[in-house]
C-alpha cells in the first residue's frame, strides 16, 4: 500500500486560531484503496486538518495536491468546498447536514442536480443509487423522510451523497461517535468494501480499538503535530495511546464493591413510550456499588434514565431511593440525593449562552446557597464555581465565560461537578464518556469510582462494553425494554453480554469494541 502513488498529498499544513496552533506542519499522503485513520485526542487538530482539506478553512501554510485522471498530482484550490467536491473529495461530518423533512433521495439530489432545472432526474439518480447500494451494502430506504431514519441510516445517506458525487477520497469525521456497536460494524464492512473498490478513506477517530480494527495505516496527531505514521499491522493499543496522549494509557482499576444499604430499588417499573419504553424492570443497587446497564441505545435506556432523572412518570411499579418513594420531578430527585448526568450534554445538559457558573448552579436556582429573597448570591456562586473549576480541572477562561466556549470534555467535567454536588447517594451516569477523549474519559471514570468508594451507588448506562467491564461490579442488559438481572461482572464475558444485547439473536453479533480488545 505504501508504495502506491498517492492520490492525495498534504504538505506542511499549518493553521492558527489566535494563540492556538491547530495544525503545525502536517504532512499526509493517502493512496487509492487505502484506509488511513487519523487518530488523536479532542483538540489535536484532526477536524481542522480535514476542514482545510475540504475548503472550509484556508490554511496559513502548506499545500494540498490531488491526482488528476492521469495520476499526476495537481494543486487543489484552498478555501473552496466546490473545488474540493469537484476534485472528488467527499466529507461526512460528525453532525450531519441533512434536511429532515426531505427523503434520502431528495437529500442526495440537493446540490448535485441543477437548481433551476425544470425536471428532477429522480429516476436516473435512483437507479444510480440502487446500484451504489447494491455494490457497497449501504442499505437505506431512499423514500423515507430523514427525520424518520435512525442515526445509522442518516449516516449512510451522507456517505451515499458523497459517493454519488463521484468521491475518490472519503473523509469520515468520528463516524462511530453516534453509532451503536452493531451499526458501527455495518459501517466498517461498507468502508472495507469501498476501499477494496479503490476509494481512499480518511477515518477520524479517537477510539483505539476501532482504529486498529479498520485502518491500514494510522496517523497520530497530538497538539496539532503529526507524532506518528505507522502501519496498523503490528501496532498495539499501548503504543498508539502513548503517541496520542504523550504518556502510557491508564486503565481504570476495578474496585471492590462495598455493598451498603440499597440506594435504588426498582420493582416492576414500566414507563416511557416507543423505543424508550422500559418494561417491568426490577433492580436493586446498593451504596458503594457500580451497576452497569449494557445495551444498544433505544432499548429503554431513556425510560430508565427518565425515571431516575425525574422527567418521566412511571405507569406501574415502585421506585425507591434509599428506601423511600422516589420524587416525581427533577427537583425532588435532586433533593432526594440523586446526581444525574444526561446522555446528551449539548441537548439537555447545558444552556450554551449561560456562563460556566450559571450552568453549575442550574439545578439549585431556588436553594439558599444560591439565592436569598430571590436575589442571586453572586459572590457565593462565583466562589463555588471557582472551587468546582479547580477541583474538577475544568479548562475554561473563567466562571463568567459562556459555557459554549468549552470543549466537550470540559463541559462534561463541569456537569460532573454539578451532579456530584452535595454528595449524592445515587448517581445516574448515562453514557458519561460518549464522545470524550481519553484524558477526560479517565477523569470521569475516576470520579465515578471515587463516588462509589465514598458510599454512593452508581448506575452506569453505557454502550461501551470496555467501560462497563472495567468499572461495573454487576452488569444488567437492556433489550427491547426488558432488563435482565444484574450479574457479577466476574461471571460475564463479552459474548454473553453481546448475545443478551441482541435479545435472542444469533451469536454472530459481537460488539466491535469487545471484539478488538
Amino acid at each position: 500500500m505504501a508504495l502506491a502513488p498517492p492520490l492525495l498529498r498534504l504538505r506542511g499544513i499549518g493553521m492558527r486560531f489566535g494563540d492556538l496552533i491547530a495544525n503545525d506542519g502536517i504532512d499526509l499522503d493517502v493512496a487509492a484503496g487505502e484506509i488511513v485513520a487519523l487518530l488523536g485526542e479532542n483538540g489535536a487538530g484532526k477536524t481542522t486538518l480535514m476542514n482545510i482539506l475540504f475548503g472550509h478553512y484556508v490554511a496559513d501554510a502548506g499545500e494540498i495536491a490531488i491526482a488528476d485522471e492521469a495520476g499526476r498530482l495537481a494543486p487543489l484550490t484552498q478555501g473552496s468546498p466546490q473545488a474540493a467536491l469537484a476534485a472528488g473529495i467527499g466529507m461526512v461530518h460528525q453532525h450531519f447536514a441533512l434536511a429532515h423533512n426531505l427523503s434520502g433521495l431528495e437529500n442526495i439530489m440537493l446540490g448535485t442536480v441543477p437548481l433551476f432545472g425544470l425536471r428532477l432526474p429522480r429516476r436516473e439518480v435512483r437507479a444510480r443509487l440502487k446500484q451504489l447500494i447494491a455494490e457497497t451494502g449501504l442499505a437505506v430506504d431512499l423514500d423515507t423522510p430523514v427525520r424518520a431514519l435512525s442515526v445509522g441510516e442518516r449516516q449512510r445517506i451522507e456517505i451515499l451523497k458523497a459517493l454519488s458525487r463521484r468521491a475518490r477520497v472519503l473523509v469520515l469525521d468520528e463516524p462511530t461517535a453516534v453509532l451503536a456497536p452493531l451499526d458501527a460494524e455495518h459501517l466498517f464492512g461498507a468502508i472495507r468494501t469501498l476501499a477494496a473498490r479503490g476509494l481512499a478513506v480518511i477515518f477520524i477517530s479517537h477510539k483505539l480499538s476501532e482504529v486498529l480494527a479498520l485502518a491500514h495505516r494510522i496517523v497520530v496527531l497530538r497538539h496539532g503535530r503529526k507524532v506518528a505514521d505507522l502501519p496498523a499491522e503490528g501496532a498495539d493499543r499501548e503504543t498508539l495511546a502513548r503517541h496520542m496522549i504523550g504518556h502510557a494509557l491508564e486503565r481504570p482499576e476495578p474496585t471492590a464493591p462495598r455493598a451498603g444499604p440499597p440506594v435504588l430499588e426498582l420493582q416492576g417499573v414500566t414507563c416511557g413510550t416507543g423505543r424508550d419504553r422500559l418494561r417491568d424492570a426490577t433492580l436493586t443497587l446498593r451504596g458503594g456499588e457500580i451497576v452497569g446497564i449494557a445495551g444498544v441505545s433505544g432499548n429503554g435506556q431513556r425510560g430508565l434514565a427518565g425515571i431516575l432523572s425525574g422527567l418521566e412518570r412511571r405507569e406501574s411499579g415502585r421506585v425507591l431511593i434509599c428506601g423511600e418513594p422516589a420524587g416525581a420531578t427533577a427537583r425532588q430527585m435532586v433533593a432526594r440525593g440523586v446526581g444525574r448526568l444526561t446522555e446528551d450534554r449539548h441537548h439537555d445538559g447545558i444552556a450554551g449562552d449561560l456562563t460556566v457558573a450559571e450552568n453549575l448552579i442550574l439545578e439549585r436556582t431556588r436553594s439558599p446557597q444560591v439565592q436569598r429573597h430571590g436575589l442571586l448570591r453572586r459572590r457565593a456562586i462565583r466562589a463555588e464555581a471557582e472551587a468546582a473549576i479547580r477541583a474538577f480541572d475544568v479548562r475554561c477562561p473563567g466562571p463568567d465565560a459562556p459555557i459554549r466556549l468549552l470543549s466537550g470534555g470540559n463541559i462534561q467535567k463541569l456537569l460532573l461537578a454539578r451532579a456530584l454536588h452535595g454528595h449524592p447517594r445515587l448517581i445516574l451516569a448515562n453514557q458519561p464518556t460518549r464522545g470524550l477523549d481519553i484524558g477526560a474519559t479517565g477523569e470521569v471514570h475516576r470520579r465515578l469510582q471515587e463516588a462509589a468508594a465514598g458510599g454512593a451507588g452508581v448506575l452506569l448506562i453505557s454502550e461501551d462494553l470496555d467501560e462497563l467491564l472495567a468499572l461495573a461490579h454487576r452488569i444488567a442488559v437492556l433489550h427491547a425494554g426488558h432488563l435482565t438481572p444484574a450479574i457479577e461482572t466476574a461471571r460475564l464475558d463479552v459474548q454473553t453480554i453481546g448475545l443478551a444485547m441482541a435479545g435472542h439473536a444469533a451469536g454472530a453479533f459481537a460488539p466491535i469494541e469487545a471484539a478488538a480488545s
Partner: protein
Amino acid sequence: MTTLRLRMEPRPSPSALLMLGVPVLSALAALLLALVILTVTGAPLGQAVPLLVSGAAGSLFAVTETLTRATPLIFTGLAAAVAFRARLWNIGGEGQLYAGALAAVAVGGGAISAPPYLLVPLVMLAGAAAGALLLLGPVLLKTRLAVDEVVTTLLLNFVMLLFVQMMLEGPMQDPMGMGWPQSAPMVDEAALPKLVAQMRLHAGLILALAAAALVHVLIRRTALGLEMRAVGGNAAAARFAGISVPGTLIITGLFSGALAGLAGASEVAGLKGYLTTDLSPGFGYAGIVVAMLAQLNALAVVPAAIFIAAVFVGADSMSRTLAISNYFADLVVALALMCTLAGSLFLRYRLRLMRTPA
C-alpha cells in the same frame, strides 16, 4: 497569482466594545441608508439633516418631545426584551398596550374617586394587569397545546384594537364627546404629573426608567431571571435541571404583558388624558425594534428607545418643513431592525480577509 477573499469565521466571544459598537453602528447605518433614500426623493440633504437633528434635539421642546415619545417605547421595548430572553416571542405589545390603556381609563375615567397618591398607582396597576392578562392566553396556549405564540399574539393585536373601537363607540364612549369615538377623559387625580412646565413630558418617563432598572435586576440578578435565561437558552437543559419551563414562561409572559400594558396606561394617564384608537402609532411593534437594537439588554433599551423616538420626532418636524412624508421615520425604524439583525451576525462571526492562490 493570488486573489483576495472575504471569509466569515466564528468568533469565540464578542468583546464589550463590540457589544456596544454593533448596535450603535447599526443605528447609524440605518440612518445613512435612509438618507440615501431621502436623496432619491429629491429632498435637499443640506436642509433635511439639520432639520432632523434640530427637530429631535435642537431645543428644550424638541428634547422633551423626544423623551415623551421615548416613554412608551421604553415600556414596549422592555416588554419585548423580557419575553425574548425566555424565547417567548411576544409580538402582541401593541394589543397589550391598548388593553392597558383601556383598563387605565376604566379605572381613572371617573369610576373611582380617590386622592392621586392612590388613584395613580391604581391606574398603572390596572394597566399592567390588563396587559398581563391579554398575554396570559397565548402563553397558556403555548405551554398547554404548543400553539405558536407569534401567530396568537400578533392576531390578538387586531382583535384588541377592534375591541377598543367597539368600547369607544359603545359602553365607554364619552357622553360629552359629541359622538366622537373616544373615552371619557381621565380625572385630574388619575393624571401623571408633568415633569417640565409648559411641556408634555410626564412622570411616565420616571416610571419607565425605574422599570428598566428593575427589569435589568430581574434578568441579571435574580433566580427567576436566571431561570428565564435558562429556558430561553436551552429549554431542554432547563427542564433537565428541574426548572419548570411552562411556569417560567407564564411568569415571563405576565411580566412582558404588564410592561406593555404600562405603556398604554402611561400614555393615557400622562399624555393624552383619554383613549382613542390612534393612541399608538405602532409603539408595540417599534418596541420589538428597540429590544433588538438593545440586544435584549434592559438598560440598553433606554438609549435605543430614545434613538427611535428621536427619529420619529425629528422626522415629523422635518417632514412638516420640507413636505416629505413622515413615513420616513418608519423607514428608519425598519432599516434599524434590519441593520441590527445583520449587525448581530458580526457578534458571532468575524470577517477575515485572506489571500488564496487562484
